[in-house]
């Protein structure tokens, strides 16, 4: 783990968190560590146990064994203290179809026991709706909303009470590319202001673009948990793309790490020097540069090892 890991407190920490449904281990001994200020990407295929984990963090599903600590307190025991400080989107947004978005948020807000003054509530509902790009004056019932608008409404509900932790399950579901970008920008802004974000997704690109940390779940087990920068750091290899494959690999001999189609991975510190050498030897070079693995390759590799 990195040095920042020890200086920041944990916002989410689970120990051997397990949920069994009969014989099936939906979540199996998961040790999550999310620190204050992180944007944590929780990756996994559909059915890998992401949603069950999220539900256990929120006290909706009780673990079979293991512990979950959220904001430093045990869940679900401390849910009345913990949950008011969390905004969440679980699986999909939900609203009463016959009421407007504003009315839905007002009902949800008024359901809690931590009442604020009426004008405070009205302001924060308006602010949350504007934040996600919905019009607070819109009187249409949610029944008429598009999937993207419903998703935005669900996000507004999560943001409404300015939570210190956002737990978002597939937040970009149903949004168009423009909407995804808007929401990503909004979430990064909130993160810059100090909100910790725990984001589950099956979209690698989404995680790669937003997150500081990544956890990968497969068949209920956490097979990878690491800082994104660490995962994506240079590998000490140089990638060379050349039409003169045979000549080139013969020339380099032992320092060639692997050969794929027209791509050569070479153990070398300095791409520029390697380039000069190859060109000097008459090898045509199409492309050369330090080799970095993509998150996809890393995840596939971790899955293969698991």
């Amino acid at each position, binding site marked *: 783990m990195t040095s920042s890991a020890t200086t920041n407190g944990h916002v989410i920490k689970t120990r051997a968190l397990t949920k069994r449904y009969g014989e099936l281990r939906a979540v199996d001994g998961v040790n999550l560590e999310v620190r204050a200020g992180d944007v944590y990407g929780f990756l996994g295929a559909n059915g890998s146990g992401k949603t069950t984990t999220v539900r256990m963090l929120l006290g909706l599903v009780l673990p079979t064994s293991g512990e979950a600590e959220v904001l430093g307190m045990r869940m679900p025991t401390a849910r009345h203290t913990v949950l008011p400080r969390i905004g969440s989107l679980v699986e999909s947004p939900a609203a009463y179809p*016959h009421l407007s978005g504003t009315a839905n948020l007002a009902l949800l807000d008024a359901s809690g026991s931590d009442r604020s003054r009426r004008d405070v509530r009205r302001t924060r509902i308006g602010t949350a709706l504007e934040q996600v790009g919905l019009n607070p004056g819109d009187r249409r019932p949610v029944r008429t909303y598009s999937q993207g608008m419903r998703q935005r409404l669900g996000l507004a509900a999560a943001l409404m009470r300015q939570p210190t932790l956002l737990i978002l399950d597939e937040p970009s579901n149903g949004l168009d590319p423009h909407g995804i970008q808007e929401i990503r920008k909004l979430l990064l802004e909130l993160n810059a202001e100090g909100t910790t974000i725990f984001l589950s997704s099956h979209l690698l690109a989404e995680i790669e673009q937003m997150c500081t940390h990544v956890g990968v779940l497969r068949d209920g087990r956490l097979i990878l948990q690491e800082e994104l920068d660490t995962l994506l750091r240079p590998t000490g290899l140089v990638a060379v793309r050349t039409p003169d494959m045979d000549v080139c690999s013969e020339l380099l001999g032992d320092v060639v790490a692997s050969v794929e189609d027209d791509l050569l991975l070479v153990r070398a510190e300095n791409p520029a020097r390697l380039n000069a050498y190859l060109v000097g030897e008459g090898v045509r070079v199409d492309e050369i540069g330090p080799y970095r693995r993509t998150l996809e390759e890393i995840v596939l590799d971790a899955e293969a090892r698991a």
Partner: protein
Amino acid sequence: MIVVELIKMICRPRTWLILAMLVALPTLVAVLLAVTDLGPRPGTGPPFLSAVLNDGTLFPLAALGVVLPLLLPIAVAVLGGDAIAGESQTGTLRYLLVRPVGRTHLLLAKLATVVAFVLLAVFVVAAVSYAEGRLLLGKAPATGTVSLSGSTLTQQELGWRTALALGYVIISMLGVAAIALFFSTLTTSAIGAALGTIGVLVASTVLLGLDAADALHPFLPTRYWLAFVDLFRDPILWRDVVRGLVVQLGYLTVFTLAAWANFGTKDIDN
């Protein structure tokens, strides 16, 4: 939370549709009686229905007698069955619970809302049918209303006995409400929970008609529903009314506790 649940109930078009249906049936009966002047022979048909041709002030009781055996319990089963399962179906249950709303708190608020609906329904039916009775049916005899035992009740006596009867009808629905609430915590289908409850009521009615089930009769939820009629005897025949009260409170306690036990630790998976 109770206030929020009440607002939710009032804001739902369905609530008003059900109320309209509850009012429509007695209205139809009143119109038919007024037009044909043909009441059921005394001692047959729903209670008070033969008496209202002479005395329209009794029509609220006749209306409750018409609505109580079938329409009102169905309405309560639908609302009670929707309580938790409906929230589950729309997906709003998980957002309520992480708001957070305590599970026990939510159950009690839902139960209170169903009872509030019964209150509203009984008063609306009583008020509308009172007006209909006065306008369409017989005028009250100047000497006062005649009780079921043949003696004469003063206006005042009739008033408080009617109030008692309305209260008894409301209490009669507590058992149904609690059963529906329990079923509602078992399933994510609001219709399933409502149908299950109606199934219990149908079974109870069938058993009531079966002599072989004699030993079970005092424990059936529908057994004492029409005992409010006894409040209009002179003197009042309390036996069945009290038994009805005990049976309803029994069902209320058992099924509310069962609902609580089931819902309190249930995994919310959808």
